[in-house]
């Protein structure tokens, strides 16, 4: 980061290669598989380049700092354009249509792995932004609860409350989509 702050582009390229895929995974799950997710990821990397001198390693890990930037950009985006629709979430649905999973005939006979992934993506998209952020940051991004709370600017109890509601709402949504306990197995 010291080198990046001094304008070292090679150092920046190394950091971007290391962190951007993870940030993109986060923005994709929050914003759906739209261009907005890629655009937001690029913007996070641009902020890394422009604001490297502002980063204080004594306050947070670099990944936490980058996730905080990504989270704020995602929230700004969602507030400016409203909630994402289920049709926008990831390429999972289209991939399912183009390339059906070979494991279509499950014992339950209804869900392939891609179907279930699409159902989860759709369920996440239907969650309120704060519940979705809490669940995605804690479940997929390999961050501690304390770090997630810091990123979302809330306390641990509030984070736990969001997680309970998110998991409950997601389970209900999956059940409404036809998924039932045991289908994932």
């Amino acid at each position, binding site marked *: 980061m010291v080198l990046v702050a001094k304008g070292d582009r090679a150092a920046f390229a190394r950091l971007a290669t290391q962190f*951007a895929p993870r940030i993109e995974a986060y923005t994709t799950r929050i914003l759906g598989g739209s261009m907005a997710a890629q655009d937001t990821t690029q913007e996070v*990397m641009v902020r890394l380049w422009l604001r490297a001198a502002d980063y204080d390693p004594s306050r947070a890990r670099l990944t936490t700092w980058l996730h905080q930037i990504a989270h704020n950009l995602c929230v700004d985006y969602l507030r400016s354009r409203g909630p994402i629709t289920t049709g926008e979430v990831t390429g999972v649905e289209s991939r399912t249509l183009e390339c059906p999973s070979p494991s279509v005939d499950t014992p339950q006979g209804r869900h392939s792995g891609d179907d*279930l*992934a699409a159902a989860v993506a759709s369920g*996440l998209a239907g969650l309120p932004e704060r519940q979705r952020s809490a669940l995605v940051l804690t479940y*997929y991004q390999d961050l501690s609860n304390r770090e997630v709370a810091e990123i979302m600017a809330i306390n641990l109890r509030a984070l736990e409350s969001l997680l*309970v509601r998110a998991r409950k709402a997601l389970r209900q949504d*999956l059940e409404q989509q036809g998924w039932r306990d045991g*289908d*994932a197995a």
Partner: protein
Amino acid sequence: MQPSAMNERKALALLTTYGADAKRWPKEHKAALADAAKRYPRVASTLMIEAQLDEALNGYAVTSQFSLDAVLARVERVSASSLQTETVNATLLPKDDSLVSVSTSELGTLERLLDNLLAATPFALTRLGLAAMVPLAVGVWLGSLAMPAEEPWWEVEQTLFAPIAEEISHG
């Protein structure tokens, strides 16, 4: 070390918050929660349900479409843009002391005349007063050229004031 006992309610709350994967449980509760799952059938069944949701979540993988070239190109654009902005700010936007050092080509005729007459006078009010007087003086001068007196001024005055003089003399 024997884990401290955890009641059923607390165990259920932790499972519905963090799911069934023990590596996601808070460190201080891991042992007690695992123990509670063995002791309480309801906790054990909740563990199974949460494990299925975890499995569904694990199935949602996303493929990265990140392109380093695209990011570097964007950084180049932003850097060029910020450099351009800095250049514009440095060259075109006025600085605090630039009001007295504007090149004479940007001034109006009147301003240039004043500058020649009163080279860099520090008193802005004086300059304003003089600036107002110059067109007045020019106007008077032009007026005298355009309307030359056809008869001496004192004759006009004598004519104008004659009735008043006559009134005074008659008391």
